[in-house]
């Protein structure tokens, strides 16, 4: 299988997943998306094995690293700002729901930062450099 065919399969799966998710939300069915995710993962794994060309290399890994770093920094800042605003709205305990959402966002941000720090420490030890 060529890389082009693999990309086509990937796009078809993405569209199919979107449709399945939308229909599932519409009908309130939670089982269909789970089955769809598992099936999509199996199809992707099989397709990846069939590709003769190299799909991932150090450059693609570097791109993924840069994208993840950018996404993390943007997401944490935006989540923190949104959480703080929502929490500030509920200062007088009038908009309680917004306050809970704000707290959830802030705790999610904290959780992400903790996971990031733990991963950083782990890879720091794994890749050496400690005296």
């Amino acid at each position, binding site marked *: 299988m060529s890389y082009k065919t693999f990309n086509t399969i990937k796009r078809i799966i993405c569209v199919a997943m979107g449709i399945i998710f939308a229909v599932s939300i519409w009908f309130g069915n939670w089982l269909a998306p789970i089955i769809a995710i598992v099936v999509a993962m199996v199809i992707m794994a099989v397709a990846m094995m069939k590709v003769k*060309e190299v*799909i*991932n*290399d*150090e450059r693609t890994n*570097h791109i993924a690293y840069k994208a993840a770093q950018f996404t993390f920094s943007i997401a944490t800042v935006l989540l923190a700002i949104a959480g703080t605003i929502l929490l500030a709205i509920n200062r007088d305990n009038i908009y309680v729901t917004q306050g809970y959402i704000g707290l959830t966002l802030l705790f999610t941000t904290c959780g992400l930062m903790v996971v990031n720090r733990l991963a950083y420490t782990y890879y720091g030890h794994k890749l050496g450099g400690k005296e």
Partner: protein
Amino acid sequence: MPKITNNIRRLRFDHDEMTQEELANRVGCTRQTIIALEQGKYVPSIELAFKITLAFNVKLEDVFQYER
């Protein structure tokens, strides 16, 4: 600013007009990586650099140059 340049494009043509895809398959990377290397947009790891030199059967300094 220091810059790393390379002769990959010239070496490919010197080796029976080797295609980018052929070189990519030999060194185990994507064709897009070879394109990025030739355009000077990407600096390879030491491992990939050595694989490229092995593919052309030349020394490292014959492929890559470090400009101060």
